[in-house]
């Protein structure tokens, strides 16, 4: 396995902590993009700190790529402002902005060698040839492709091509690195490997990075912060842990990881009713509503003996290696519920389809969202 052992570029080798202190890299205000009657982005506000690795995450058509392209200047916004390091770049064409970009398709120039691809932006700056050669060698070493200068892109594997694209994007030392689904075209094994490599490289260079992805696992693994988007607006911005543990909306809750939704009635600010049972839960703002949706992750659901908790019936059991996924029906309301439990615990409970048992919903793991209909 190749590792990132190459020396850092002196220019990019800044202390990461210092960068973080330096404050905002990018500030987006009220960014709106319309395509005819369709609103692709509806007044997005976002601030990205210097040196941060941010992921735009969401289902296809949520506006994440549109937002990235607006930042790059490739698809100018209909309204709103983008400020990069204190400079208003809202109306600048791409070539006047400061970024490097890597696309899902790599977009390597097929008729140019790896060397010429990486040197593409350098040649234009009229650096002298020796300097360019040095810099290209340095970049290729950085992405573990030293010695591939003379090859053509077609002779490289997908992962190698993507690393060349990365080297090309970094060649001009941009202040901002934009990654547009860079890993989607690769097969699973290469993807996981390259994921680590990119993250390590980014941490080392300290370059502010925005990555667009629809793969939540990728986002959770790589990002300092995740921007979850849906229908052209931001649903939540937070660290991976925040996004996972405290999803700000039912959409985020459902989109990230697996989640059980149960229809309940709020009962005051700290409790709810599931059928006739009253359960405690963390503070919520559905107090006045008639209906609400209770969310709980399968791994937070606890199974116990029949006489404790809510009684439920085991419908089916899936073996998923490290744990079992148990499908349950609550006796009280007939609602379906899924619980992930360790194999050892299952043996202790003597789980079998048709068995009845008790279900505990720990109050600290409960979140309540307004409305009733579960979105698909």
């Amino acid at each position: 396995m190749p590792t990132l052992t190459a020396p850092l570029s002196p220019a990019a080798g800044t202390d990461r902590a210092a960068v973080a202190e330096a404050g905002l890299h990018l500030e987006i205000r009220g960014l709106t993009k319309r395509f005819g009657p369709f609103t692709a982005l509806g007044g997005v506000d976002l601030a990205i700190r210097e040196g941060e690795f941010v992921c735009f995450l969401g289902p296809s058509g949520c506006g994440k790529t549109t937002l990235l392209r607006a930042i790059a200047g490739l698809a100018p916004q209909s309204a709103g402002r983008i400020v990069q390091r204190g400079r208003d770049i809202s109306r600048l064409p791409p070539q006047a902005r400061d970024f490097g970009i890597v696309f899902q398709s790599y977009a390597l120039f097929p008729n140019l060698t790896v060397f010429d691809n990486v040197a593409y932006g350098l040649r234009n700056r009229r650096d002298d040839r020796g300097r360019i050669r040095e810099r290209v060698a340095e970049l290729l070493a950085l992405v573990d492709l030293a010695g591939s200068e003379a090859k053509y892109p077609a002779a490289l594997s997908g992962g190698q091509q993507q690393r060349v694209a990365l080297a090309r994007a970094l060649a001009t030392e941009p202040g901002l690195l934009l990654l547009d689904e860079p890993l989607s075209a690769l097969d699973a094994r290469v993807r996981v490997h390259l994921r680590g490599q990119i993250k390590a490289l980014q941490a080392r260079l300290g370059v502010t990075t925005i990555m667009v992805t629809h793969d939540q696992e990728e986002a959770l693994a790589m990002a300092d912060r995740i921007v979850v988007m849906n229908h052209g607006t931001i649903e939540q911005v937070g660290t991976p842990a925040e996004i996972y543990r405290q999803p700000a909306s039912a959409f985020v809750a459902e989109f990230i990881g697996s989640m059980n939704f149960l229809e309940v009635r709020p009962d005051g600010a700290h409790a709810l009713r599931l059928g006739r049972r009253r359960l405690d839960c963390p503070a919520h703002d559905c107090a006045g509503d008639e209906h609400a949706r209770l969310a709980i992750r399968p791994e937070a659901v606890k199974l116990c003996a029949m006489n404790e908790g809510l009684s439920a019936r085991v419908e089916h059991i899936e073996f998923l290696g490290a744990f079992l996924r148990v499908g349950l029906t609550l006796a009280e309301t007939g609602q379906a519920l899924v619980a992930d439990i360790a194999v050892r615990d299952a043996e202790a409970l003597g789980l079998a389809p048709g068995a009845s048992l008790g279900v505990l919903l720990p109050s600290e793991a409960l979140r309540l969202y307004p409305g009733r209909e579960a979105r698909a």
Partner: protein
Amino acid sequence: MRVAFPMDGSRWLSGEALVRLVALLAALALLVVGLLFPLASMLVKSLQDRAGDFVGLANFARYVQTPALMGSIVNSLTVALISTALVVGLAFLCAYGITRTCMPGKRLFRMLAVLPILAPSLLPAISLVYLFGNQGWFREALLGQSIYGPIGIVLGMCFWIFPHALMILTTALSTSDARLYEAAEALGTPKWRGFLTITLPGARYGLISCAFVVFTLAITDFGVPKIIGGQFSVLATDVYRQVVGQQNFQMGAVVSVILLLPALASFVVDRWIQRRQVAQLSARAVPWRPTPSPLRDWTFALLCYAVGAAILLVIGTAIYASLVQFWPYDLSLTLEHYAFEMLAGGGWASWFNSLKLAFSVALIGTLVIFFNAWLIEKSDGYRVLRQGLHFLAMLPMAVPGMVLGLAYIFFFNQAGNPLNWLYGTLAILVLNTLVHFYTVCHLTSVTALKQLDPEFEAVGASLKVPFWVTFRRVTLPVSLPAVLDISVYLFVNAMTTVSAVVFLYTSDTRLASVAVMHLDEAGYFASAAAMAVLIFFTSLAVKLAQAALSHLLLNRAQEWRQAG
């Protein structure tokens, strides 16, 4: 028109965006000046009397009341429809042979089938006179009918339109999905039902599209009916007769407008069909491979060989005709007929002029059309402008050469036109030819560009490389095979076209293709054949040079293309 910047208009116009806007506007200017304004002038002219006063539809009324002119509509339609039926039928069988059988000699046949494109449409007409004329070798085959008239026109059309039809249908039939045939076979469907339920429906859009292309070519062609039409007048020869013979420009404009109608109609239908076809073939389709079947293979092989032999016969006849001392009474061979200097048509100078024109159009046209296609395809913003340009680029296909040539007279020969100086120069011939053959080149460019990664430009911009550098270093080299195709297409057409340029040449800019017509008009049939043969071999040489060059380029690019 909503252009450029959707915001408050104060968006900073970078040097590069300015260059791009200027380039787009230049492309617009080219097509507006080279196509729209002339056509508009022609429409206006058709509504004026000789003195230039507006007379409404009076000219059209006179047209309708002149039986000789009205008859041409029926004649044109008859000839075009028969040609369409024959060409499409024959081309379908040959295309089927190429794509769906294991017939031997496919490559050879495909090479032979391209040859007619390299000759002016006057060549088959001349050959037909030698083959079926009153002294022709096969005159008995016509059972007493004269070759001068509809029979000759239809045969001549079939010859030179056949390659176009074959190309379209070969493409249509080669996009087959083997899975459908496997499914049919698994269900025990007989072969003929498979043909009716899978093959025909699959090729249906190709067939319809092909029929319209052939019909348009047939109804607008001028060369064949001019040479062999005799007293059988068609719309295209009427335009010529009205304008050149009688200098009745108003009536010429009227006939042109009428000639424009069927061409426009088939253009609209074709566009509509193209749009519907898009989603037809799924990306997962598995190409169907024929398995040998001696009876079927040899049936189609014999058919294709017969067609190939007919093509060779027609070309061979023209070559022979150009070498015979005094046909049919003195059959000794001579090169005398290639001494054009003493004859009508401008002599060898016209051949040099044609070369000059063809090289200019090939060079300028290729760069301009490909670059414009790139601007249209790969720019962001200026959406309305780009859509308008794309439409204008598609339009020339619907404008017959005769109409475009005449429209140029009306527009560029106006005394008040600042572009009046172009009139009578080689430049106007270059512009006219470029516009005349714009559409196919534009479509070829767009197809090639669509195959490129859409993000090349974005990458270039992010690396702060000006777009023209990326165009030069990446887009152009990667698209080189298509670019070569376009330039050869333009070269060959510039060499062979008669219809548009017949109105625009002057004594200094006489062209070889027009010379063929003049030599024939004046009765120098052998020299007319000689000039046509000369054009044919010139085109052939360029085509062969292209093949060699493409081969060389592909070999050199093999390294980077292999997996791309």
